[in-house]
């Protein structure tokens, strides 16, 4: 049988060392930014900025280090679904918590 260059055994799909290091430097830079931004008073924006930077770092790790770049889209969907369900859990829980006492009815 001749060797076929299918994606899982074709090492040209390997993340180049230079890309690994570039992503790493970007992650370090984002960490420095998030620590610096924590000391600035941006009132209500502090949390969204911190979470935004964390999400950017997460996307870098997932796209490059976790090789979603070369993965089947099914893997994207699976990972995305985890975050979608987490978002549902947080949003529905918080809408319950925040709306307590609005109706003036016991238990609501």
């Amino acid at each position: 049988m001749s060797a076929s260059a299918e994606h899982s055994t074709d090492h040209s799909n390997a993340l180049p060392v230079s890309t690994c290091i570039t992503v790493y430097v970007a992650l370090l830079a984002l960490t420095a930014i998030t620590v610096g931004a924590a000391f600035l008073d941006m009132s209500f924006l502090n949390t969204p900025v911190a979470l935004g930077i964390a999400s950017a770092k997460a996307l870098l790790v997932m796209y490059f280090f976790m090789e979603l770049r070369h993965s089947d889209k099914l893997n994207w969907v699976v990972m995305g679904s985890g975050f979608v369900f987490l978002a549902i859990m947080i949003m529905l829980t918080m809408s319950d918590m925040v709306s307590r006492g609005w109706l003036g009815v016991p238990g609501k």
Partner: protein
Amino acid sequence: MLEQAAPYVAHHFDDAEQQHDASTLGMWLFLAQEVMFFGGLFTTYVVYRTAFPEAFHAASHELDITLGAFNTVVLLTSSLTMALSVHAAQVSRRGMLIVNLILTLVLGSVFLGVKVVEYAAKFEHHLVPGPNFHFHGPDPVNAQLFFSLYFAMTGLHALHMIIGAGLLLVLIARSWQGMFSRYYYTPVEMVGLYWHFVDLIWIFLFPLLYLLGRH
């Protein structure tokens, strides 16, 4: 289909590629579950931080931001060495593979060591929830809630790091025996996915726990 991968292809798969795809999907499904596993704690954090913002701000200030930032850098570096390990396996460079796996393990251990130092400091400063808890800032009752979440979330994360360390030991042993090459490197890749995920969790834990009350 490559003959070199044949010894590692289980009987219920057609070929190495299908086995690799199945392993990858399986690991992603597990990681999606892990998102929900940690998600319960994250949701709890959101609920109680929204309810008691002042207590959480004041309590967060008690954490050592230098150690937290240092640990973040340590974990990001371990993700780099893990990615380099996977690369090394994919290009059949056994020496580079073993070195980077060992580096990943060492960095993970450094992270756990710093956590031990941090936890010890919490005990010293009476910040461990329980009968000896004593908080000097505002709203001590709800500040204790923050520390319960701190220990639960970082503790669960540390448990995952320890499991990852065990997996790395197995990989190092098998790499030493020459099991991995560009024809078969799936276990290295899968442990890599797990390790990067544990890093992801910390990427979110760090700002939520350490960077709250700094301004």
